């Protein structure tokens, strides 16, 4: 198992290197003059020259690439050219929004997707099955942004003045305090360093922060704000998971050992959960891993619709504003996440199916 792990980790190094090169190239070939884009159309040539020299944009491309890779490996993402703040700080501030949103969406999609798929497989061709599959087909065909806007219309406007009302945008209502847990606990934390960054990162995940500080008002408010975007983002993976769970379960339920298990007198529920479901897990893990990657892409749209300044939204704005620093580093972070998720999927494969790790 350890050998397999090491082999898989080494195999992803060339891909990571490729990602660095590709993001570097993308950031360089985005048309337009970064100086004019940041300092404005009226910037004089002298000002521009100094600006370009300061940012190292006048060195040979190959040199820039080497410097860039060296910096990234050391964990230094440079500054956002436009906002003039370290990119790492932006990441710490904005990544939690996306992580919280994606995890919530994944939670919803697994929570509803798996049981729906399993039930429709067990009750194959019943009305539950038919309705689930119609719904799942519609779900995978739904444009995320449209679903988001429609949910917003229903829950923020039509259901106004009912207990089902949900806020249309933002992460917390104004006036709800979300003091970071380490301040509430009276810890003294410096402004710099990995430790401080990690604490700020964690405290920016509102639900986690609310749980740690016991701030129930914040918890309720943050969950209310999270429901609509998470449902919008989670619908496609939910439908995919439901479909995959159904077909994997149908495959397994038709096999002889299930009949044997039933024939020797085991209860139906036990057989379904223990004998059938554990063997249907393998394809499900793939779908869940793949959808987690898709969530990061869908986050751009969801964050745009619901006015959240997360990773996707920031990256989109940076691309349009030609902010090299942000484009490069945020793309790298997302791609590394992606590679890591694929690695996790492979590892869980090996864990779930011994044949894979032994080959």
């Amino acid at each position: 198992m350890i050998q397999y792990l090491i082999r898989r980790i080494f195999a992803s190094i060339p891909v990571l290197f490729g990602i660095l090169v590709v993001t570097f190239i993308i950031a360089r070939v985005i048309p337009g003059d970064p100086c004019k884009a940041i300092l404005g159309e009226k910037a004089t040539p002298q000002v521009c020259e100094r600006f370009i020299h300061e940012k190292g944009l006048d060195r040979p491309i190959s040199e820039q690439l080497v410097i860039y890779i060296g910096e990234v490996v050391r964990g230094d993402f440079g500054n956002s050219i436009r906002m003039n703040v370290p990119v790492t700080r932006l990441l710490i501030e904005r990544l939690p929004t996306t992580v919280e949103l994606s995890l919530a969406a994944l939670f919803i999609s697994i929570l509803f997707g798996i049981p729906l798929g399993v039930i429709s497989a067990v009750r194959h061709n019943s009305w539950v099955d038919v309705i689930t599959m119609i719904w799942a087909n519609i779900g995978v065909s739904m444009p995320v942004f449209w679903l988001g806007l429609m949910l917003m219309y229903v829950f923020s406007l039509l259901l106004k003045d009912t207990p089902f009302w949900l806020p249309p945008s933002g992460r917390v209502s104004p006036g709800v305090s979300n003091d970071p847990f380490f301040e509430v606990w009276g810890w003294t934390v410096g402004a710099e360093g990995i430790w401080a960054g990690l604490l700020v990162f964690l405290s920016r995940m509102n639900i986690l922060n609310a749980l740690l500080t016991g701030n129930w008002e914040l918890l309720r408010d943050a969950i209310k704000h999270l429901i609509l975007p998470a449902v919008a983002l989670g619908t496609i993976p939910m439908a995919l998971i439901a479909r995959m769970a159904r077909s994997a379960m149908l495959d397994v339920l038709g096999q002889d050992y299930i009949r044997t298990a039933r024939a020797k007198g085991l209860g139906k529920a036990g057989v379904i959960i223990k004998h059938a479901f554990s063997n249907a897990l393998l394809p499900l893990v793939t779908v869940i891993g793949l959808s987690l990657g898709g969530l990061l892409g869908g986050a751009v749209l969801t964050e745009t619709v619901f006015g959240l300044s997360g990773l996707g939204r920031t990256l989109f704005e940076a691309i349009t504003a030609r902010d090299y620093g942000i484009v490069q580093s945020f793309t790298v972070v997302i791609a590394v996440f992606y590679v890591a998720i694929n690695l996790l999927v492979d590892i869980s494969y090996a864990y779930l199916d011994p044949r894979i790790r032994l080959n």
Partner: protein
Amino acid sequence: MENDETKIPQLDKEGLSHKSVNLWQITWRRLFRRRSALVGMGILGLLVFIALTAQWLAPYGFDEVLIGKENVSSREKPCIHLLGCPADQPQHLAGIDGNVRDQYSRLLYGARLSLMVGFSTVTFAIIIGTVLGAIAGYFGGWWDNIIMRFMDVLLAFPSLLLAIAIVTVLGPGLINALIAIGIVSIPAYARVMRASVLTVREMEYVSATRALGGSNMQILFLRILPNALTPLIVQGTLGIASAILDAAALSFLGLGAQPPTPEWGSMLGAERNQVFTAPHLVFYPGLMIMLTVLSFNLIGDGLRDALDPRLAHSS
């Protein structure tokens, strides 16, 4: 369940069947037996009809501004005579958009764009993907390593984000959005093609062709490609669905089709801040996108099942 494809064909004295049924006939028959695929084909048929006849079906032009022509105002609600809208008012089935144009006519014209987007991006991606996958699988070695590692890198980005980045490089616009979506969908086809090449490369009939003096091109296109067609067709049909969805998303973000092009995604994006005051301008374009994507998904799923030999005897 008894069905005609499982019946043993009538044999003559020498034990030969007079009626041979090829794979495509079987596939068609199986496809027509699936209710979901039928629904998909029905929706798609309707959309193709709308796309072909939009200029006759649409009561107004897609960029026809109605100021001064009719007594309507910007973002007016739908007026449908059957649902009680006074008969003396002009009928607007999907209301009026922000620039005082008939939304219904624009929706009809939009069908052309979406279908065009779907077919052209997937054709582009299939052609390039198949060639790359074929080279990688057939020649192996360095070719394989370079091409497939590059595909891995492309796959390491969420497809929508990569498409956004490519459009930014090329500049916003419908054609550039199509190219971007085409590029990000190449790896899927390259992988399918490579896998098919690898499975048949060492087969006897391929060696036989080579022994008979067949060139690499002949082997690739006449012997190997036909074997890769079924997975490519399934992947392609499902690929059209996701291409349409991605193109709509790019247009929604303002990177794809530019106004006044009646593209559903950009129509929706232009009016998204009016969702509380004029929900019809957001609802209908999204519904059209969903129906189009749904039709391709249903057909793709149906095709996959119909082409799967393991399911040959199930109904």
